[in-house]
């Protein structure tokens, strides 16, 4: 009788563990995202193909020829993305001529709805130097994993959805190595200072 009870309890415990691990696997960013299943396993060398709005394709090696400001978002985002894009536009103005040396990338996490014409139209409301990038869902999973950007689709009912998403901005050296982040609604002074630092550092890297 006692043994039965032990077996009963431990199988209950095992079932619980199984449920927790299933939940963890599903909720892990990049795994269950958008209900899209990546048919190919994530590649080790973290390569991907990204396409800009003029149809030019890049991979992880060719994308970051310049020091880069990188931000992930989507055009159906009501608050964080438009505010951040407006912030970035203002920082670029404050950087003045130096902004030519900086590449600014806005990667959509919603390639399903953010088609090239939609993204192009949307970005035309902001600084022209902000470049839109679209990646296929599997490539997007690789790139977001590389920069540790969580994004999870959230149902809003009747075919509508939004995303929980990382709101940080990444500053990358030429080559794509992340050196600094900017928080959501980072003050202009700090943001511009960090951007100048990134440009100066990249200049030193080039001369060495």
């Amino acid at each position, binding site marked *: 009788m006692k043994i039965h009870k032990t077996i009963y309890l431990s199988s209950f415990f095992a079932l619980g563990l199984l449920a927790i691990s299933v939940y963890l696997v599903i909720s892990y960013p990049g795994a269950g995202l958008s209900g899209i299943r990546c048919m190919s396993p994530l590649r080790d060398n973290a390569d991907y193909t990204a396409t800009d709005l003029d149809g030019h394709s890049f991979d992880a090696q060719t994308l970051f020829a310049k020091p880069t400001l990188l931000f992930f978002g989507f055009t159906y985002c009501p608050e*964080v993305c*438009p*505010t951040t894009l407006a912030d970035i536009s203002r920082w670029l103005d404050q950087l003045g001529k130096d902004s030519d040396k900086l590449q600014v990338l806005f990667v959509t996490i919603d390639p399903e709805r953010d088609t090239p014409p939609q993204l192009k139209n*949307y970005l035309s409301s902001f600084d022209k130097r902000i470049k839109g990038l679209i990646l296929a869902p599997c490539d997007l999973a690789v790139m977001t994993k590389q920069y540790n950007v969580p994004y999870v689709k*959230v149902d*809003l*009912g009747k075919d509508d959805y*939004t995303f929980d998403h990382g*709101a940080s901005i990444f500053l990358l050296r030429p080559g794509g190595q992340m050196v600094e982040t900017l928080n959501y609604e980072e003050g202009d002074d700090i943001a511009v200072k960090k951007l100048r630092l990134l440009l100066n550092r990249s200049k030193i890297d080039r001369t060495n």
Partner: protein
Amino acid sequence: MKKDIFYPKQFVVSLILVFTMVFFAQMAHAADAIIVVRDAFAKATPKGARTAAIYMNIKNNGAEPDRLTSITTELADKAQIHTMTMQGDVMQMRALPGDLIIPPHSSVSLSPMASHIMLIGLKQPLIAGGNFTLVLHFAKCGEMDINVIVKPIAASENMNEDTQNHLPQ
């Protein structure tokens, strides 16, 4: 001899009457304005945007709670109340399950980085400097048309001192 036309007693009585009437009229007006919506604004939307966020302060002067049950506007397919929270650097947005409760003698603030009314299926862009009408449906107070002004995208947060009461969790 004709007496003076001025009758002090009658004058005082009529004065009291007038004041009483004004007082009751004021009371009646106050009873009308149990729910007061202030500072309703939206941020301008980029071209092609299909969503927009609206912020406001809703004050309940009554002794009973009221509920904001739904929101409609000709500008969008639908409107929902959303709460926003920052978990680390991750922005999370959720539709509020059920109605937004406005407790008695207090106010609820919908403000950036906390909560907003989200327009879904926006039919035309919101342009800074413009305004539009939003219809709020309250369980007790009924329908209320409010005017929403449109601020530039980078508009700073609306800082009200009268916004201690945020959305219930």
